[in-house]
């Protein structure tokens, strides 16, 4: 566990009112990004992040300092987001409507490149489980081992899910091109 995170968790547990805010400032956008990728819709992701942080605020006392805080946090995030996704949100359709309406992310920061919307739409065609491994691997930049620990699956399963996800994504992404950075 990283020293900073351990300190913040301990400070929170000892009653420091700023510690939890600092944990949010460090991980809020990362958790939001993962939630957004998994559930596919901006406000649903915001609701989810709020629920997750309220949940972990109450559950940090049960946190065992045996794993990294970030691993524990992402596990909570992924489980919560997958449960929400399985409740029947229709991610791609919702997102398509939001993109068409041009009101997808009020209050957030997004530069709105068309390529990002194309990638997001393609990801919404994946099952939530495949979307999750893609998100953890390429959005969070986690190793196969870290993903396996978070999802509590074998490394072989991580790789097979990645393989299947890439095979599914390839036809949808083959005509997507990145604009050169100015």
């Amino acid at each position, binding site marked *: 566990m990283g020293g900073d995170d351990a300190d913040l968790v301990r400070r929170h547990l000892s009653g420091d009112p700023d510690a*939890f805010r600092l944990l949010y400032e460090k991980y809020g956008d990362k958790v939001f990004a993962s939630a957004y990728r998994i559930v596919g819709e901006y406000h649903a992701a915001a609701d989810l992040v709020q629920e997750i942080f*309220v949940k972990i605020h109450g559950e940090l006392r049960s946190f065992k300092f045996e794993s990294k805080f970030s691993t524990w946090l992402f596990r909570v995030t992924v489980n919560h987001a997958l449960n929400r996704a399985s409740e029947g949100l229709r991610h791609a359709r919702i997102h398509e409507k939001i993109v068409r309406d041009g009101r997808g992310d009020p209050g*957030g*920061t997004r530069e709105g490149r068309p390529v990002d919307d194309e990638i997001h739409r393609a990801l919404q065609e994946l099952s939530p489980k495949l979307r999750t491994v893609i998100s953890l691997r390429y959005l969070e930049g986690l190793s196969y081992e870290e993903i396996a620990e978070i999802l509590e699956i074998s490394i072989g399963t991580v790789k097979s899910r990645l393989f299947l996800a890439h095979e599914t994504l390839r036809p949808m*992404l083959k005509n997507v091109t990145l604009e050169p950075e100015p």
Partner: protein
Amino acid sequence: MTCQTFSDRLFDFLQGRLREDRADFDAHRGSCPACAARLGGIRENERLLRSARVPTAPADLWPRIAAAVAQGRPLPFRGLRMASFLAAAAALLLTVTLVITSRPSRSPQLNLIVQDVAPESQRAFRTLVPKYDDVDAATAMVDTIFRND
């Protein structure tokens, strides 16, 4: 190396961890166009996925979390929007109800009759009313309307 083994080693290769089988892997890639294309496709996917941007969290998310923690329950964004919608719908319903109840009551049958015959004469109405049950009430209503006109 078979295509299946190539696929099994693919992510080790992409993560720079392929050691023992590296020569076989490279040989298979050179001799199997399908596997070479698959590797190229995954690399291109990875390039796109790593470059993809996602929106950041709403600026007011932390204040909501802090408030929710203080209250011990989340204050959902979508729930708030739904509450606003329901409040607006309730206000509209109340307004419509007040407008309707403040006017003299008419039965649905009478409304239909009046719409049907208003452009016509009273005589035309009297040929029409046998189709309706409450003829006396309809007649009285239309008489009132014509008298007012």
